[in-house]
């Protein structure tokens, strides 16, 4: 590693006395961690908060003016290596830590040489010194879970209180590293205030951040430009809030990408600007998802299922989810509804909800109605049953009103299928 390569020449160039100091420091570090820290940090005030020991643990790995910045970045990447890299052995880590100390400032150590107390652990010490020893178990240098660090990091605690699901974020090691190294006051607060400005409520922030943890590495100015762009396209503030809430990755997209996407939908569906806007507000994941399934589904509707263009437009404005539906399920549902239930195109267009329901539901209800002799889907004839009543109402109401039978009869029928 580059770090140790830098360290080694310095280590070997030092005077014998200095190497003595360093070994002394080594053993000191091993025996009395808490105490020697306070020695090293002469300017550090005595903090009686819980975060004392652990902030030290983090400050060694953060960019802080007293430390060499090259050391901290590489050690920072060392510290929070989770699943991707193997766990570093503890001794290696500690020896790295100790190697850093000598290069810090030789003067401090020469000073300390004079008031170094003798080093035996059996040495009696005063009551005050004894109290100041913090002998808590050290933080693991790398872990696969954020559980080990949550009690020691204010950032993580505040995120949990907001409602962010850390168990999902720790599955992405880069994200977990990022969150550990961020400071709540400096970085995260700005972004949270920005999100509140956009219109996301407090109780919705948790779900949003669980999905889009990458927002912390985004540039705030860029995101403000994107929101301004959406406002310029006549999306109201409430619209933008709803879009960002339902599609958390929206603000990670650049302005040109958003522009391209909006243009694509307008051209492809040939809808008016107002209707495109409504469509995108209802289903904002059209802007963040891939465009290939949408193109494929449009071809399926037009060529395979045989709907005319204005029919497709009507269906999509009613049920935007049809644009991203699974092609196989679409064709199976259409095959059953059109060929087995003998429902013509113009009636299917009036009730596109049938493409949004599970096929087994449509099948079971249709077979029950056929068994009862009530399967009549032609509006011209009496006792007509519309498709939306067939699929969109719950079982009890369906049995009572449409089939005019009890739920027990329906269940008995289902067991004969």
């Amino acid at each position, binding site marked *: 590693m580059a770090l140790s390569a830098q360290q080694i020449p310095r280590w070997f160039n030092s005077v014998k006395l200095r190497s003595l100091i360093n070994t002394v420091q080594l053993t000191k570090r091993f025996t009395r961690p808490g105490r020697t820290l306070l020695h090293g940090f002469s300017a550090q005030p*005595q903090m*009686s*908060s*819980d975060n004392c020991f652990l902030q030290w643990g983090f400050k060694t790995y953060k960019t802080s003016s007293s430390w060499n910045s090259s050391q901290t970045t590489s050690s920072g990447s060392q510290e929070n290596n989770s699943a991707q890299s193997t766990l570093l052995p503890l001794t290696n880590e500690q020896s790295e830590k100790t190697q850093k100390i000598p290069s810090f400032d030789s003067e401090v150590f020469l000073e300390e040489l004079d008031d170094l107390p003798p080093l035996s652990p059996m040495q009696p010490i005063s009551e*005050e010194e004894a*109290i*100041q020893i913090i002998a808590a178990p050290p933080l693991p240098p790398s872990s696969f879970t*954020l*559980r080990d660090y*949550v*009690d020691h990091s204010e950032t*993580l*605690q505040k995120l*949990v209180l907001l*409602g*962010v*699901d*850390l*168990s*999902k974020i720790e599955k992405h090691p880069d994200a977990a590293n990022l969150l550990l190294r961020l400071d709540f006051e400096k970085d995260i607060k700005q972004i949270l205030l920005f999100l509140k400005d956009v219109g996301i409520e407090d109780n919705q922030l948790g779900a949003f951040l669980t999905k889009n943890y990458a927002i912390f590495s985004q540039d705030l100015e860029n995101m403000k430009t994107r929101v301004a762009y959406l406002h310029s396209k006549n999306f109201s503030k409430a619209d933008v809030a709803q879009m960002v809430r339902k599609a958390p990755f929206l603000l990670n997209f650049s302005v040109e990408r958003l522009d391209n996407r909006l243009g694509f939908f307008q051209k492809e569906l040939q809808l008016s600007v107002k209707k495109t806007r409504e469509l995108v507000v209802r289903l904002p994941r059209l802007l963040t998802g891939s465009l290939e399934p949408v193109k494929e589904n449009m071809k399926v509707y037009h060529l395979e299922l045989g709907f005319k263009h204005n029919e497709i437009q009507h269906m999509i404005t009613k049920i935007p989810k049809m644009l991203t539906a699974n092609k196989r399920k679409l064709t199976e549902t259409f095959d059953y509804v059109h060929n087995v239930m003998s429902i013509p195109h113009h009636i299917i267009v009036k009730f596109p909800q049938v493409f949004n329901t599970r096929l*087994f539901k449509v*099948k*079971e209800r249709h077979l029950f109605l056929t068994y009862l002799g009530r399967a009549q889907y032609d509006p011209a004839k009496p006792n007509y049953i519309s498709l939306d009543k067939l699929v969109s109402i719950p*079982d009890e109401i369906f049995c009572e009103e449409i089939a005019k039978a009890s739920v027990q009869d329906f*269940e008995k029928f*289902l*067991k*004969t*299928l």
Partner: protein
Amino acid sequence: MRSASLSRLQGLFAVYKPPGLKWKHLRDTVELQLLKGLNARKPPAPEQRVRFLLGAVEGSEEKELTLTATSVPSLTNHPLVCGPAFTHFKVGVGHRLDAQASGVLVLGVGRGCRLLTDMYNAHLTKDYTVRGLLGKATDDFCEDGRLVEKTTYDHVTREKLDRILAVIQGSHQKALVMYSNLDLKTQEAYEMAVRGLIRPMTKSPMLITGIRCLHFAPPEFLVEVQCMHETQKELRKLVHEIGLELKTTAVCSQVRRTRDGIFTLDSALLRTQWDLHSIQDAIQTATPWVAAELEKSLSPGLDTKQLPSPGWSWDSQVPSSGEGC
């Protein structure tokens, strides 16, 4: 509490598998529903941990430092940090059903999976209703397979069908005795045969212990089959062979299992009932029957080996097979 609901979730229960659903998807769906129910419980109160903090003692002349023990809330076991309490649950499947067949499917949860092996070793019979369609023959014996042959079926009557079914039952009766490896000359074997059916307690090909026609309206007919060591494909092949015996052809349009051991259609759970509470209730109801049945089949003594046959006894079959032959 959590452990009480978990302890009620060990055992066997039956599910009605609808046609068109693979048994593996069904098992996965049931597991997901159970996990959803188990994880929906209220999380325990947040833990506290003790930290010793340095602080100044009040009322002293000098600034004296001392350690005070304080209880600080700990977030280590918070659900948002650890994830859901349950991520996996052991759900096992008994005698499988293929995708197009429907009917009673026995599932085991937790420690009940062990009982599944015991149920398998008890070699109990299963009841099926098989619907056939005369006049067609396909390559996979199903209605939607590739058509091989079309025939007329005007000459087929109910009487002919009953005769064929009786012949089938008779030939399978012989096979039953042969595969059960019993010496019929002994007194115990005779007593067993008198009391109930002898059946093989080891692996054997499909054996039909009872078959009769429930409904005959050409081209459709409905046949009830009581069998063991079967697969649904062999049952469809049976329909095809019945067609051939009738000097016409037949395909199978529905295979439905109505009973698997002691689990019948009444106790099978429908899709809307695949949730934690209904499954727990079903397990509670089924546990005593399962225990009694397994004790009966595994206990020593040949005279206790009886087949459970609720519904219809096969004594009614004997006269027709006698007349038919």
